[in-house]
């Protein structure tokens, strides 16, 4: 049974053709890989493919189907798309995309909010400043936007992944 898989912004089809011990025959977009894969350390796989040696680190994403995958020099976001995921992806579209929220990626403290609800902001303008680890981070919008709701106030502590501002 082939799975759909999302690698950064690319979609691919992956299919397990056969397996014996740690040897896998896997097709990705109809290209077939024969490889030996062993989890040698917690979250670290040693992969031999065509005698090339790869060390691949997997970091758990938000759910059991999401991974951050680190190769030697690069990092990819990989998501396995099963039926449940597809359903959730469709549903999420209805309540607004992720891009419509400014989310704090880590714990910190809100230093300044530069706009109020209803304000129009231009591409590149800073909306909110959060301080963490002795450094202030400015969160900007990439396109012209309108501030829909502000969920925090100056001085608030925020947790990681906490939505702070909803924009549209």
């Amino acid at each position, binding site marked *: *049974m082939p*799975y759909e*898989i999302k*690698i950064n912004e690319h979609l*691919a089809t*992956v299919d*397990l*053709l*056969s*397996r*014996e*011990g*740690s*040897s*896998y*025959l*896997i097709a*990705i977009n109809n*290209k077939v*890989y024969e*490889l030996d*894969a*062993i*989890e*040698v*350390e*917690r*979250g*670290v*796989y040693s*992969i031999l*493919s065509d005698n090339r040696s*790869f*060390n*691949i*680190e*997997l*970091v758990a994403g938000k759910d*059991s*189907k999401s*991974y951050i*995958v*680190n*190769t*030697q*020099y*690069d990092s*990819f976001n*990989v998501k*396995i798309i099963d039926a449940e995921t597809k359903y959730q992806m469709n549903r999420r579209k209805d309540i607004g995309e992720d891009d419509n929220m400014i989310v704090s*990626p*880590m*714990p*910190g403290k809100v230093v300044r909010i530069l706009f109020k609800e209803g304000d129009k902001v231009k591409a590149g303008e800073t909306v909110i400043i959060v301080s*963490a*680890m*002795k*450094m202030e*981070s400015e969160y900007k919008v990439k396109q012209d936007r309108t501030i829909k709701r502000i969920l925090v106030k100056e001085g608030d502590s925020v947790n*990681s992944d906490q939505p702070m501002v909803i924009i549209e």
Partner: protein
Amino acid sequence: MIKKVLVANRGEIAVRVMRSCREMGLTTVAVYSDVDRTAMHVRYADEAFAIGPSPSAESYLRMDKIIDVAKKSGADAIHPGYGFLSENAAFAELCEQEGIAFIGPSPFAIKTMGDKITARKTMIKAGVPVVPGTTEPIKDTKTAIEVINEIGLPVMIKASAGGGGKGMRLVKTEKEIINAISAARSEAKAAFGDDAVYIEKYISSPHHIEFQVLGDKHGNVVHLFERECSIQRRHQKVVEETPSPILNHEVRMKMGADAVAAAKAVNYYGAGTIEFIVDDDLNYYFLEMNTRLQVEHPITERVVGVDLVKQQINIANGMELSFRQEDLKQHGHAIEVRIYAEDPDNNFMPSPGIIKHISEPLGLGVRHDGYVYEGYEIPIYYDPMISKLIVWSESRDEAIARLKRALYAYKITGVKTSIPYLHRILEVPDFVKGRYNTHFIEENKEYLQPKQNCVDQCMEVAAITAFIDYINKLEQLQPARPDKHLGNNWKDLGRKRSVLRY
């Protein structure tokens, strides 16, 4: 003689100081804030005392609490590390009053060098070259404008009490003057409670080169050569190396002699650093003195062969320096990079979190000074530096190759790190050639952009690995249900081999 040392710091520097104490047979005492109960310095020390809440103002900066622990534990000396109380003259004085040895310079030296304008005057008196500029703090905008007109543009406006880039403004054109002055003054006021500024000639194409000095309490001062620290991002050093690729023997010796003169001008004892600004023609000017151990001290230790922390302790013990200037030589080349918990591809956003996995680089010519371990959570309250990687080799080229090799093997998951960014710096032609100044990062933005190094196969292998992990985990959750679609020859043996053996 010192027998028990309280280390009033945390992170890699606390552990590094304790290592030297251990080698000297001294007992070590750690202090820790709430969030640091599980930090490595607490685990490494012989004794550990809680000193309060996580914000440093309530713990690592609380002189009273630290002195209290010193007394309770019977510590006869305090090593302040860098940052926190390391350049606080009041703390050094307090230690003195309480009969505890402060492993650092005299309060007088800290005070004199801590105020940029006093330091400047002292240097002029000692015959050490300084950047043309004001000698008195300027407290009003009008005087500032006059002075700028006198020195001539471009100039740099700096907070008198400042450091770390706060309250600094570059003025290139006349029309920027007024805005720049008021911005610098208000920033200085906010950061240091003092809006006095001073104004200096701005050196375009500047190199930041500093000299390590050591002085004892008997008036002997030597320098341990230079460190080239021009690669800076937002005034924070990123890569340091020694010898500097631009110095020659003659200028090195002259600068070294001036560094010694600078230290002698304040009767300096302990370890200290004289920072110089150097232009492309190797004219150099005194910038400031750091009256403490520097983050980048290991490259000097490696090339000169001296343990600077042990020297600090010996000096605090009143011992004479065991070497003279002519005994000291530079051997080979050392480079240090600082590894931060930050996301270089996302505006260097700090990335606190739990270290899920770490593989440290090993082997010939590699020194690693860190403090994190698997399962450790990097807290949000302090500097996000994880570790320092220091390499040495006979030649600069080989040292760069070795550093690349070490970074290749250095793996941390759980938090984002600056490792990929450091890799890119090492590839920039200006760095490879050793032709760079403090504008390096700005001028090489293009080179320093994230590049996708692996395409096709590598990306596909990455995706497949995630997929394999997913189906394996799925399999483990459903042990009873035979998954027909998982292919043939599904054998127990194979399954055992492909899961982690713990």
